[in-house]
Structures are given as structure tokens and as C-alpha cells.
């Protein structure tokens, strides 16, 4: 073999040939026809070649790493199943967190796969186009591996079996679903800002870490292993998010106000969706990791603060209403769990009242709010339960037109008053839980006035009927099995039987 007589290319040059080098300026068709979607939002890109690839992964390496990771994951899942790992978790109440994850989050992975495929085809710049293609693959794999991981629990616990059907129908699942529908029906740059930046970069630690650490603390080895398996992909998704934001801001000064508006919008939307995670952290984990308020301080106030300080050199400021969201970190989980407690009859997982130890933990973690506003309510409900008068809310709630959450949130600075806003558009009045949600509607009323709201649909007769039992059937929820309190549920009976059998074996 003759020794190479030419200078070797460096990694960056090689990667450029493996990606950008493949692309060409079309001449039989106009580039604007080949890429019809990447200009209408008003984002100006003057030079795609300035894009810095945040990672350099060729396809052979991609397949190799992912194949290795998934082999390991499936080996752990097999051993978890063989060793009856479901019996080794902290408590069967924990499984309800996983139900919320499978019904609320896993379908979002799938939606992310679909829409990153859109970006993977339609973004003119090759660097971000290839990155979007890989993320589309990642998200599909994550949806698949999550379903495989959690399917084991479906053999023993209720509430999992109809997760895709439920995702499209159930009232609280319309919160994450509508969040993603909003992003997927936006232009490609807004989607990048919404999902890659606001969600994957700014807020991801408030979604992924709570679920995965929650799994670790509660003996759910299967889900933890999934989390580790996805971690290297998530790191890529984050770097894509920050690179896209910087790139848009560097390309043209006119992009700043557009990007700022999207950051404001998606921060607020993300904050509302994450209220479900807040509730999961503060109420649904038998072994707590940290409180939502602590998580918010670490991952948003500190990490997000440093991020936005860094981005201030581009003129980008901290998202609008970040101060309100921070105040709400001591309220939102309590308000959400109260909503689910009242509507347990329509929830696809079990609810319960916190016990004394848990109430004390909440008092300690939320010293400014819990004893004053929320503990008395839970204690009153406990007394009512003891008297055989467990409280159910049988009225259909008004939903926020933007975030789709029942309007149970309180005014900033006044936790005894329900927040309420409204706007009139084309002679119709629309209602909002907060100023943040109203602002989002007012900016795009034509879009949000078309939102699919479950309560309206029930009243219009589109949800199986007028009675709760009709709607539950339409949800594919089994009355007395999938819904209602943990106490008295088949899940609890099964768990108690396992515990009794274990005691017997232990003698």
C-alpha cells in the first residue's frame, strides 16, 4: 500500500463532507419549492453555512451506539421481569407515577418523532436537518423503549392498557397533548424553539430528572435503566436546542423579537404542563427525591438564570412571567393534586390523601404556603373521608382555553382567589387560568379558538354520553379498577397480597 501523500482531513472537515457535502442547490426545481416551510415565520437566515454542528455523529456510529445501548436495556428488562421486579418497588402507589408517564409523556416522544421528521425534511440547512433526523429516530426509539419498559407493569397493575387511546381523550392528558399539538402545528423554527430549546434545554431537567430519580428512589430499576439509556440522546437534543437559539439570534437582528416571543410563550406553556410533574414529585412518590420547589430552584432559578445571563449578550431576556412561575413553585403541586383528588372518578390512576408524615414533609418543604393554604384542606378532606363523606367534585370544570387545565389556579400574590381572565374573539368569549395563557391566546386567537376542549366536547355530546359512566367507557377506563382512590383498588389488593406472601416466606 502506498502511504498517503496528501494531508489528512480533520474531523470537522470529514463530517462536513458526510453531511453538508451531500447537499446541492437544486436547479430543476426552485429551492423555495423544495423547502417551502422555512421562511413564512419571518426568521431570517442569511448564511446556513455558519451553522456549527453541535455534535458529529455519522450513521454507522449512530446505529452501533444505539444498538449496544438497547441490547443492554433489554437485558436489564428481561432480568427485571424474571426477578419479579414489580414486587421490589417502594410501594404500589409509586406505579401511579409511571401510569402518568406512559399516558402523558410517552405519546409526546412519538409526536416529537413525527415532527422532527418534518424538520428533518424541511429545514434548508443541512446541519440542523441531519440533527433533526437523528432526533426523530431517537424519539421514536424512546417511545418504543418506554412502552417496552413499562409494559411489564401492565401485566400486574391497572391504568396502562389503553394509553394511546386515553392520550387522545382524557381531560388531563389533553394538557400535554395540546402542548405538543401546538408545537407541531407551528412553523419549524417555532417548533425548534418550543421543543428543542424551551422543553429540551431549559425545562428538561424538570421532567426527566424527577421521573428517572423518582424511579431510582422507588426501586424501579427498569425505568431507571431506560433513563440511562436515553441520556446520551438527551444530551444531543439539548445541544441542538441551544445551538438553534444562538444561530437564529446570530443570523439576523430581526429574529430577536420573534424568538423572544416564542421563548416567553413556550416557557409559560412548559411551566403549566410541568405542573403535572410537580404533583407527581410532591405527592405521588412514596419515597421523595426533593420537592418541586427545590427542583425549580436548582433547575430553573439557578441553571436557567445562568443560561439567560449567557444569552443576554444576544439581547434575549428571561422569559416573561418567570417570576410568577417561580412564585407558583410553592403552590402548583398542591393545587393540582387537589384537582385530581376531587376528580379521582375520572382519573386513569389512583389518588390518595397524604399521610401525617407526608403532610409534615410538605409543610417543611413549602413553609410559606402549605400550612396556611393547603394542609387545612387536605385535613378537612381526611375528616370527611373518616365520616364516610369522601368529597367528589361532580361538576364539569371550566378549562383554560390555552393550557386546557381546569381553572383552579390562584391569582399571583393572592392564593385564596381563583385566577380568571377572558378575551373576546369573533363574538365568542374565551377563558384563561392566567395572564400568561391569555397573552398566548391573544397573540394567536385564530389558532387557539379552535382548541379541542374536553368539557365542551362532553356538552356537545361527542364523548360517549352525558354521564360519567358513558365518558369513562369512551375513555376506555374501567370504573372501580383504573380510577378512584388507591385504598380499595385492585392494585392495592394485589400489592397487599404480595407483601403478605413475602412475610410468610420470611417467617
Amino acid at each position, binding site marked *: 500500500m502506498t502511504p498517503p501523500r496528501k494531508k489528512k*482531513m480533520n474531523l470537522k472537515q470529514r463530517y462536513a*463532507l458526510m453531511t453538508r457535502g451531500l447537499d446541492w442547490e437544486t436547479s430543476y426545481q426552485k429551492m423555495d419549492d423544495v423547502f417551502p416551510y422555512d421562511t413564512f415565520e419571518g426568521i431570517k437566515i442569511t448564511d446556513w453555512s455558519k451553522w456549527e454542528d453541535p455534535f458529529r455523529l455519522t450513521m454507522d456510529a449512530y446505529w452501533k451506539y444505539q444498538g449496544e445501548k438497547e441490547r443492554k436495556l433489554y437485558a436489564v428488562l428481561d432480568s427485571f421481569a424474571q426477578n419479579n421486579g414489580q414486587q421490589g418497588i417502594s410501594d404500589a402507589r409509586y406505579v401511579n407515577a409511571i401510569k402518568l408517564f406512559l399516558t402523558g409523556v410517552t405519546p409526546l416522544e412519538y409526536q416529537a418523532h413525527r415532527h422532527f*421528521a418534518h424538520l428533518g425534511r424541511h429545514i434548508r440547512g443541512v446541519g440542523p436537518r441531519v440533527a433533526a433526523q437523528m432526533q*426523530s429516530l431517537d424519539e421514536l426509539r424512546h417511545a418504543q423503549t418506554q412502552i417496552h419498559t413499562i409494559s411489564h407493569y401492565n401485566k400486574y397493575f391497572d391504568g396502562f392498557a389503553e394509553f394511546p387511546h386515553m392520550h387522545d381523550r382524557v381531560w388531563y392528558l389533553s394538557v400535554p397533548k395540546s402542548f405538543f399539538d401546538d408545537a407541531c402545528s407551528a412553523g419549524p423554527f417555532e417548533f425548534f424553539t418550543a421543543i428543542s430549546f424551551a422543553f429540551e434545554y431549559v425545562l428538561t431537567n424538570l421532567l426527566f430528572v424527577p421521573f428517572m430519580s423518582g424511579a431510582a428512589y422507588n426501586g424501579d430499576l427498569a425505568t431507571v435503566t431506560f433513563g440511562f439509556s436515553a441520556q446520551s440522546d438527551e444530551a444531543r437534543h439539548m445541544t441542538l436546542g441551544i445551538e438553534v437559539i444562538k444561530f437564529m439570534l446570530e443570523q439576523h437582528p430581526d429574529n430577536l423579537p420573534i424568538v423572544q416571543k416564542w421563548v416567553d410563550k413556550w416557557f409559560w406553556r412548559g411551566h403549566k404542563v410541568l405542573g403535572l410533574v410537580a404533583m407527581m414529585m410532591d405527592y405521588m412518590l412514596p419515597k421523595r427525591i426533593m420537592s418541586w420547589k427545590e427542583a425549580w430552584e436548582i433547575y430553573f432559578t439557578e441553571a436557567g438564570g445562568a443560561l439567560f445571563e449567557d444569552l443576554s449578550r444576544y439581547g434575549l431576556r428571561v422569559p416573561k412571567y418567570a417570576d410568577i412561575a417561580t412564585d407558583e413553585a410553592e403552590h402548583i403541586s398542591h393545587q393540582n393534586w387537589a384537582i385530581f383528588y376531587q376528580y379521582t372518578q375520572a382519573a386513569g390512576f389512583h389518588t390518595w390523601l397524604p399521610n401525617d408524615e407526608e403532610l409534615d414533609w410538605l409543610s417543611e418543604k413549602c413553609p410559606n404556603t402549605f400550612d396556611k393554604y393547603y394542609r387545612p384542606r387536605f385535613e378537612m378532606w381526611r375528616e370527611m373521608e373518616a365520616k364516610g363523606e369522601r368529597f367528589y367534585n361532580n361538576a364539569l370544570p371550566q378549562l383554560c382555553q390555552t393550557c386546557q387545565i381546569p381553572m383552579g389556579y390562584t391569582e399571583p400574590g393572592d392564593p385564596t382567589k381563583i385566577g380568571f381572565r377572558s378575551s373576546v374573539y369573533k363574538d365568542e368569549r374565551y377563558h384563561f387560568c392566567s395572564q400568561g395563557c391569555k397573552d398566548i391566546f391573544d397573540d394567536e386567537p385564530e389558532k387557539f379558538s379552535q382548541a379541542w376542549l374536553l368539557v365542551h366536547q362532553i356538552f356537545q355530546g361527542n364523548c360517549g354520553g352525558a354521564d360519567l359512566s358513558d365518558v369513562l367507557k369512551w375513555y376506555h377506563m374501567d370504573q372501580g379498577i383504573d380510577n378512584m382512590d388507591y385504598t380499595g383498588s385492585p392494585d392495592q389488593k394485589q400489592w397487599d397480597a404480595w407483601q403478605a406472601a413475602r412475610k410468610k416466606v420470611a417467617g
Partner: protein
Amino acid sequence: MLANIDEEWREMIVKYLIPLRHYEWGANMNACAVSDAGYGAALTSAMIFTTGDRLGIAQILSRIGIVLSEGDAELLGRAKQAWMEADAWQGVRKAIEDSLVEKDWFEVLLAQFLVMDGMVYPLVYKHFDTAGQKHGAAALSILCEFMVDWSAEHNRWVDAVVKTAVKESDENRVLLSDWYGKWRSIMSEALQPQAAMVLGDGGEAVLNEVCEQLDARASKLGLTL
């Protein structure tokens, strides 16, 4: 490993094989378009994996170009120039560009994965490869083995999809047959200069054979020719 290839055939590889990295990039975009716009996970999930596979194949071809170029980008540059300007490539490039603006995702699926691939793959990785054996290009066959294996596997999927769609209704059969005829005619013409360039006088017969085999495959799927 590629050092045994005749100098003359190395030039031929730069003309016929390396420009295909752009063809693969077009196929990558078309797969991604179907994954984006298609309906039903059975199609859209498979198509995002194909998206990755076609990028992977484009990268294999790029690496072959870099190796032939002894580590630099010179040959890739020449191959790209051929893709953009050489007469022999313009029919294929036009077909790809036309497919990129096609709005019906099922037509894209049929055009790219049944018709275009159904001609390009056997022509290049079978017939052109066989011709290279006389010129010391055995090692090149090994480097292209993935493409041969991959397309055998992928064709089974493509056939199953087309067959299912054809069986669904008579309207489908008529529409799909129309599309097949349209793209078959575009591609059989577009590949003539390729076949002539690599195989000389024998090119026409080989291309006819490739087209006949594709027609036979299409008939078996229920398409009317």
C-alpha cells in the same frame, strides 16, 4: 484495499458510483418526507429508519470517495460536479428534484423506493459491479455489500406496502399503476447514459433487462403495466 483497481476503472468509479451519494441524499429526504407526511406508524416508523439508512449509505459512498482520493476531498468534489453538470447525470438529478416537490407522499414512496431504487440498485451494485471485476474492483464489491444486503431487505418492505395498497381498491391499483408507468419511463430514460458510460454497447441490453425485471416485480405486486 482499493489499490488493485485499474487506473481507468478508478476514473469510472468516480463517474458512476461516487455521485450516487447525492442520489442517496435525495432518497434520504424522500424517506423523511414520507415519515413526515405519511399516515400510519407501519409506514412512518419504517421510513424514519430508512431515512437514517440512506444517510448511512451516502456516507459509505463518501468514504469510498475519500479512500480513492487518498484521504482528501478532491474526488468527492469532482463527483459532485458530475452530479451537477455532467450530461450523464442530469436525468437522474432531475428525477430526484422532481420527486422532492411531489406533494403526494405515496407517490414519493412509490417513485423513490420501488421505481428509482428498483432500477438504480441492480444496475449499479450488480451490473456495474460485475463489470468492475475485470478491472480489479473486487474490493469495491465488499465495500458495497451493505447496499446489496440492505436493498434486498428493504425491497421486501416496499413490496409489501405497494401490494397492500394495490389490493385495497381498484382506484388504488389504477392510480399506482399510472405513477409506476410515469416514473418507470422517466427513470429508464435517465439511466441510459449511465448504462452506456459504464457498459458501452452492452449497456442498453442490461438496462432493458433491469427494467424487465422491475416490470415483472411490479406485475407480481398487482400493478398494471
